[in-house]
């Protein structure tokens, strides 16, 4: 398994596997940013010491196996319904830390109503929104957040706004509402952005612990497989093109 390396005296471990993460082998594609984001959530749970009272909600999408990767209680939601399921859990047991982890189809297509209304009610939950502008699990169909001109299996000639609409800015929409406490957009295509994304995720969980209300972290992600790019190329695509349509930064922060 591990490279057999004898660590000499005088060295300390500065990076290891988070306690919140199980030993299960990752099912994500090589280079998929899901892996980074999943790990950041686990690191945040570790740092806040909340593993034993956290309940995660897995979506339908590439992260459908999310319950395998964490060492906490989990509930599998129907496609798009995670925010309603989270509402049910949090209203029944406000003492638990409840988070959803959803892709762009789950959160912003089929789940739009559940997402908007949970945000509008200011449900005291944490939402991790992984936006890679495509439906990965089902083989690469258009998502609400697909860029104009982007080729997908359902837009083989490229997304045409006239026919397929424009990329949906769900986070901008949610930021207009009174209910949410924190809406932010981050990315993980390089180390600096990973560090910032982690701080955003920590804040989104801390908000729940402090009862501040609905906190959503959108994270621009890649899909090397369905974008037909190498992982490195895909990361660059986000850095150079996606951020122009989906600018990074805090869209709402009550403090």
């Amino acid at each position: 398994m591990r490279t057999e390396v004898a660590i000499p005296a005088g060295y300390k471990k500065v990076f290891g596997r988070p306690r919140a993460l199980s030993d299960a082998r990752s099912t994500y594609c090589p280079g998929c940013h899901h892996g980074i984001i999943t790990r950041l959530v686990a690191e945040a749970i570790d740092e806040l010491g909340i593993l034993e009272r956290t309940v995660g909600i897995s979506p339908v999408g590439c992260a459908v196996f999310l319950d395998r990767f964490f060492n906490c209680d989990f509930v599998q939601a129907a496609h798009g319904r995670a925010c309603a399921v989270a509402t049910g859990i949090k209203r029944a047991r406000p003492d638990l830390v409840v988070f959803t982890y959803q892709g762009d189809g789950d959160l912003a297509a089929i789940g739009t109503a559940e997402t908007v209304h949970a945000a509008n009610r200011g449900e005291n939950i944490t939402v991790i929104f992984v936006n890679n502008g495509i439906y990965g699990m089902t083989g690469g169909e258009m998502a609400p957040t697909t860029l104009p001109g982007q080729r997908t299996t359902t837009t083989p000639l490229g997304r045409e706004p006239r026919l397929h609409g424009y990329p949906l800015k769900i986070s901008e929409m949610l930021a207009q509402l009174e209910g949410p406490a924190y809406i932010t957009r981050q990315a993980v295509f390089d180390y600096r952005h990973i560090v910032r994304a982690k701080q955003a995720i920590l804040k989104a969980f801390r908000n729940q612990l402090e009862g501040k209300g609905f906190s959503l972290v959108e994270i621009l992600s890649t899909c090397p497989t369905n974008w037909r790019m190498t992982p490195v190329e895909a990361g660059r695509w986000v850095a150079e093109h996606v951020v122009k349509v989906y600018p990074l930064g805090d869209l709402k922060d009550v403090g």
Partner: protein
Amino acid sequence: MPKGIVVVDKERCKGCGLCIEACPFGVLGFSSEYNSSGYRVVYMEHPDKCTGCAVCANVCPDVALEVYRQEPTKEAA
């Protein structure tokens, strides 16, 4: 600069190359080894350049890397 060691979990590595790209010192490279899933695993190609900054481990989507860093000695402190 402190020295660092990157330990690769060969079975978790998927040969995606993000760590190789991210490393500021060009420490990592693809080895000639394939793991049981058929992925080409990374290794420390230039171990003496490693400072234990852990940027590689931070970008690894598979948590396949562990990083160790030399502690500062009394003289250096």
